[in-house]
């Protein structure tokens, strides 16, 4: 950069230190007229114009030549003061440029082309970079089924459901059909369609149920589908069959009971059926087949999501209440207190709306 700046200064300084055009040289205007006169002669000799026209042209040029001669002024003597001022300006300009650049630019930042970002060591890379890495690998090796299987759940967690459908679909096509893969594909399709069990997803769940009749998730979704199709008696039967096989502490059981209750027309007493938007049916069903630590991770993820949403849009008393309750349930009392504090600040303008949050905090005794 210093080299560039020096070059810029030199470009201006060199001509300043050199002499101007030698005095006594003909002015360019007069040179042009002389060339024109020569060209008229050439045109005449090539037969392009008649002698009479050439004569007229010469007269015209001569007229202009005389005028140009009269207008030519002798150059003035040079002024060292002006030159010195200009030289100072010339040196100052790159310096000012340097200052302006420091203000506008980010000199400490290196380039980060895609290739170098993909080369960062695994333990330092963030999730996005890892995703990009796998994606570029898959773009080069689209027949790597294991790769698709790895990236599918990542897409799912990132909310990129269409990509997840594509990934699971590819994994299925390349590695062959298993109950787990069919279920994953169907699950992604349902999420991509806002919880609706579309025909393709339905087919996938049916294949999964056939491959592994004991798996819970496909049966769960098929029951949901029956409900969505308005086939009430069949749906009720499916839910009942599912609940009969359920272990007592199954995470999805409340959801199933709520759905059953809704179908049977009675009010559901369980928490999951309350009006507050809890985990979606799809989430609950997915958690059914999860290991406990995975499930905890998923719940933590959802709570973090809620906290993020509230940070962006704090004017939501019910949301704050839900967040406080979630932290308490998870045993994160400090976070719950923190959330309560934040809710108080956010809703300071309308204390009456803070009531549900306060109530939640009081019931857990954190205040």
């Amino acid at each position, binding site marked *: 950069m210093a080299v560039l700046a020096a070059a810029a200064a030199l470009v201006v300084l060199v001509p300043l230190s050199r002499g101007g055009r030698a005095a006594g040289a003909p002015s360019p205007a007069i040179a042009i007229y002389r060339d024109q006169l020569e060209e008229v002669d050439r045109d005449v000799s090539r037969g392009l114009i008649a002698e009479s026209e050439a004569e007229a*042209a010469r007269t015209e040029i001569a007229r202009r030549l005389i005028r*140009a001669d009269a207008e030519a002024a002798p150059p003035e003597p040079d002024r060292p003061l*002006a030159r010195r001022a*200009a030289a100072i300006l010339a040196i100052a300009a790159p310096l000012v440029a340097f200052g302006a650049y420091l203000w506008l630019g980010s000199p400490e930042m290196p380039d980060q082309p895609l290739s170098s970002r993909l080369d960062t060591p695994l333990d330092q890379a963030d999730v996005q970079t890892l995703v990009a890495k796998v994606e570029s690998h898959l773009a080069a090796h689209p027949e790597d089924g294991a790769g698709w299987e790895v990236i599918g759940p990542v897409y799912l967690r990132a909310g990129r459901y269409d990509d997840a459908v594509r990934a699971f679909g590819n994994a299925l096509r390349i590695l062959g059909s298993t109950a787990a893969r069919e279920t994953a594909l169907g699950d992604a399709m349902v999420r991509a369609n806002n919880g609706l069990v579309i025909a393709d997803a339905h087919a996938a769940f049916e294949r999964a149920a056939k491959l592994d009749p004991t798996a819970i998730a496909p049966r769960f979704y098929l029951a949901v589908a029956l409900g969505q199709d308005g086939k009430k008696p069949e749906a009720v039967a499916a839910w009942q069959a599912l609940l009969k096989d359920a272990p007592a502490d199954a995470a999805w059981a409340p959801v199933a009971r709520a759905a059953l209750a809704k179908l049977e027309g009675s009010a559901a007493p369980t928490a999951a059926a309350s009006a507050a938007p809890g985990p979606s049916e799809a989430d609950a069903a997915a958690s059914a087949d999860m290991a406990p630590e995975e499930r905890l991770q998923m719940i933590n993820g959802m709570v973090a999501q809620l906290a993020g949403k509230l940070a962006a849009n704090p004017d939501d008393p019910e949301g704050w209440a839900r967040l406080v309750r979630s932290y308490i349930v998870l045993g994160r009392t400090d976070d719950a207190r923190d959330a309560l504090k934040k809710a108080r600040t956010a809703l300071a303008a309308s204390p009456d709306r803070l009531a549900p949050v306060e109530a939640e905090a009081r019931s857990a005794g954190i205040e």
Partner: protein
Amino acid sequence: MIAELGHFALVLALALAAVQSVVPLWGALDREPRLMAVAPPAAIAQFLFTGLAFAALVHAYVTSDFSLLNVVENSHSSKPLLYKITGVWGNHEGSMLLWVLILTLFGALVAAFGRNLPDRLRALVLAVQGWIASAFFLFILLTSNPFIRLSPAPAEGNDLNPVLQDIGLAIHPPLLYLGYVGCSISFAFAVAALIDGRIDAAWARWVRPWTLAAWIFLTLGIAMGSYWAYYELGWGGFWFWDPVENASLMPWLIATALLHSAIVMEKRNALKVWTVLLAILAFSFSLIGTFLVRSGVLTSVHAFASDPTRGIFILVILCLFIGGALSLFAFRASTLTPGGIFAPVSREGALVLNNLFLTAAAATVVVGTLYPLALEALTGTRISVGAPFFNLTFGPLMVPLLMLVPFGPMLAWKRGDIAAAAERLMAAFGIALVAAAAAAFAMGATDILALAGIALAAWLMAGALSETAFRIKLFQAPLAESFRRFVGLPRSALGTALAHFGLGVTMLGLVAATSWSSEDILTMKPGESVTVGGYQVTLEGFIPRPGPNYEEIAVRFLVRDGGVTVRTMEASKRNFATRATSTTEAAIATFWPSQVYISLGDIATDGATTVRLYWKSLATLIWLGAIVMALGGALSLSDRRLRVGAPRPARKLAAVPAE
């Protein structure tokens, strides 16, 4: 590091532009040669620094360096290499950088090839270039900086607007900018002449080729933009009187006028004041065009970003340069000495008439483009000014102009003979009538306006040819003599004839394509056929397939002529997941010089699709004519003879009009 180097080079270019706008001006006013001598190296270095900045941005795009905000917003790592490069100017910041790159390129060219310019004139011209460059460097650095960094770099970019992912983006903007910015040279010369208070021979000798070069690029840029809109936007139209199109048409009309008045200026030393005014206006319209397109006042594919601070910044630049130049003109124009005199009927007179028509036509376009904007700003009423307005105003102005075009080159300088010119054009007139009669016979005499248009187009083409035929004494002298004369013809004369001929070709295409094209909108299933312009078009089937950064469904059509398959066409719909948008790729088959144009509507789930089928009668001629015009300009540009418009002596009538 490369990105930061580019950023620094850009700031340095601004510093040099600032020096270049002050020091040479000072030198010129003070008659100090060493201060004036600063201008050329500063201009060249400025171009090199801007080039470095541009190269750094291209590098960032090619390597998908998403630590640059501009790259994140407009690129994607899976984009094909060509679109990574063209994507550099497929957005506001990058396109402004291209703008100044071309500006500094022209400045460097003046510096490098301007040795035979008087020192004062060169210093002043480069100083004015320096002002323009400083303003735009400031604009870029303060409101549209493409080198803003982002940390941490996101993994993937937002991709380029799919409509712009086309070879057209590689051609149309650079050409158009070469045209727009080329006008800045004539502007700088004009302002320099006004500051200096005089115009000498070197002035005229320089302005005409620069104007001509700018005009060639502008012509090609507009034609390319029109063809791109025609095949990419899928409406099957080629000109919509859209404000963005008008923004490029206005400088073109004025540049065309300037081109013609600069001829008078160079050859006859007349029309100086008028030429200076046109030079100022041509660049002013280029600036207005840039403002309209870039400020977000208009919404279109060109309005990449609408940011009020940018709009105001450009508006200030606009007022400073246009207002400043016009006030300077008002104060100083009287100091310019008027040049040669001429009779009303003469080549000069014809060119003045051409200028009047062209500027009046430009004025109607200005009104049609700016009036709706002004009305909306003042009263909030939204009106749309479209083809009907322009047909009623622009059309009637162009028709007499086009009728007069063949006369111009037939007239002699200083004093001409209209009767003799008319006599020489009798053949062309006859050809025009025959062409109209032939069209009436072929297409039916129902559309009188279209027939008149055909006659006019034939008149233009035949007129251009008969001028050359007359000059080489075709059919009046032995063929060998004619050939010798043809070889001896100045290239500028051939260029004139070619450009005027191209105008006729474009006219023919416009008339035929608007009058005798057909349009069908229907739903088709595989196996179904329809007749378009005498050909049977059959929908063969749907082909889904992946592209590099999109998924597409191509629909294949077979074109049969009397049962024989002559062409396969594929129209498609592309879906770009990153931007969640889709584009329609029209299929075009050229049956010289007409075209079959197929564009897809919605594809239904039951395997049927809406299809628009057009028969575009003689449509290719529209753009071909523009290319012929540009070729004519290039031919004329290659003729670097010194020009003196030798007047015909008053006492005796020579047979050959002088070149």
